[in-house]
């Protein structure tokens, strides 16, 4: 029964995508305008851009920026989040900073970073990190606040020490929060990166999308967007889902 249900869901999913493509195809044929190319035209553009190496190059650049800024934001965010979650005075002191940073529009941070540090690579990365960091801190802080005191006492009475306690007692409890921060982080970061590239870089997906906008090249715009969405989906399926399964394996 379970398998039948799975097959049915897969079938429904495939049918819905076919329907979407059909509506798109019909709309494109009816309009017959370069503003809405057919799915086939978009697929062809995607294939040509891939073969020429242009799409892989820009996609690679954007992904490397994503990896750098994501890793930095997560590392710093986890460290600061744990510190704030465990120390009430520190949290009371920095809470207002967090609220301010959470509410600064992403565009403002990006522009300020470029103005203050110039149109350089690390200013771009910094702008993304500054945008993402408060979200990670807030999520991890909640995790650190919810740590099981009984288990921490157990670790203390058996003299685990700081490293062992962090690795075996604190970190497993924080994992669901880290996963939440990772998921929301990826979704947020890749959107910010496109704006960062659009405003101040001469390569990457954001830069390319901006060029296509100026040329009204909707086919390329869609081809690049789908490539990017596909990569993010792959990250979800190949990295995040297995990580999720791994952290949940002990649950009943």
């Amino acid at each position, binding site marked *: 029964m379970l398998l039948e249900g799975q097959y049915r869901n897969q079938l429904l999913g495939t049918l819905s995508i076919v329907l979407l493509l059909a509506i798109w195809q019909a709309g494109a044929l009816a309009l017959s305008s370069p503003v809405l190319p057919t799915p086939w035209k978009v697929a062809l553009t995607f294939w040509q851009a891939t073969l020429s190496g242009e799409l892989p190059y820009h996609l690679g650049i954007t992904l490397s920026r994503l990896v750098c800024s994501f890793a930095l934001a997560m590392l710093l965010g986890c460290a600061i989040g744990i510190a704030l979650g465990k120390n009430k005075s520190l949290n009371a002191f920095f809470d207002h900073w967090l609220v301010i940073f959470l509410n600064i529009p992403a565009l403002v941070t990006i522009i300020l970073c470029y103005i203050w540090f110039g149109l350089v690579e690390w200013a771009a990365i910094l702008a993304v990190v500054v945008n993402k960091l408060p979200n990670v801190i807030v999520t991890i802080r909640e995790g650190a606040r919810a740590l099981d005191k009984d288990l921490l006492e157990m670790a203390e*009475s*058996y003299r685990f020490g700081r490293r062992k306690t962090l690795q075996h007692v604190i970190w497993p409890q924080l994992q669901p929060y880290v996963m939440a921060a990772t998921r929301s982080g990826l979704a947020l970061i890749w959107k910010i990166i496109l704006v960062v590239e659009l405003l101040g870089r001469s390569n990457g997906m954001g830069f390319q999308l901006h060029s296509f906008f100026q040329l009204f090249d909707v086919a390329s715009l869609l081809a690049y967007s789908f490539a990017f969405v596909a990569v993010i989906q792959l990250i979800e399926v190949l990295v995040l889902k297995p990580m999720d399964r791994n952290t949940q394996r002990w649950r009943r």
Partner: protein
Amino acid sequence: MSDIRINIINKTYVLEHDRDHNHHAIAGLDFTVHPKQFVCLVGPSGCGKTTLLNMIAGLDHQYEGQIHKGQLGTTPSIGYVFQNPRLLPWYSIRQNIELVFQHQPPVQLIDSLLDSMQLRDAQHQYPERLSLGMQRRVAIIRAFAINPDILLMDEPFVSLDAPTARQVRSLLYSLWRQRPHTVLFVTHDLREAIAMADRLIFLSPAPMRILGDIEVTIARDLRHNDNQIEAFRNQLLQNHSEISGLL
């Protein structure tokens, strides 16, 4: 290992739901526990027994007085069996036991402890998949495994049904007889205390003080005999009226 000397003059704490008032937990407590002695601390619920164990374990330093555990300059190892098992749910029960070792965990010792508590078959299970009784046995193994200088046990059989409690108690008792440690065992079950202890310390409701310090004179080999336990209990209650009101 030398004596544990406990001399607490005063201990107060603030309750979560009543932050305006100090709760007076201990008002003068002075006793010494000798090496390898099995001491039962008997007192009503909420009298501060857990607080006392936490202080001995070094988890609570907010008190007036002194607790000497062993020779000056040395820190004795402590095995603590908490009231709830406090196992790490993301590790198997074997990993939970292995984790308390500072260095390489001794495979054979852990195997034999798992055998003696009848848990060998379940060693790779996660704690949440085990019954509470099994989890409690794991917690006892974990405390015994490090061969501690002091073993603290905080009502480890509470909320177990009577047959399971009896079974775990006899497993614990035989384990202790094979490997005697200094034990401080908190309970409010007088029969359980008589069945296991060398000495009973009766504690008053909060603020806690000692109401009686009594040696259990029943020979170790006769402790399985319920009649002996019952007779000792009746005599105790008859001779010490302050205790009978307590229980």
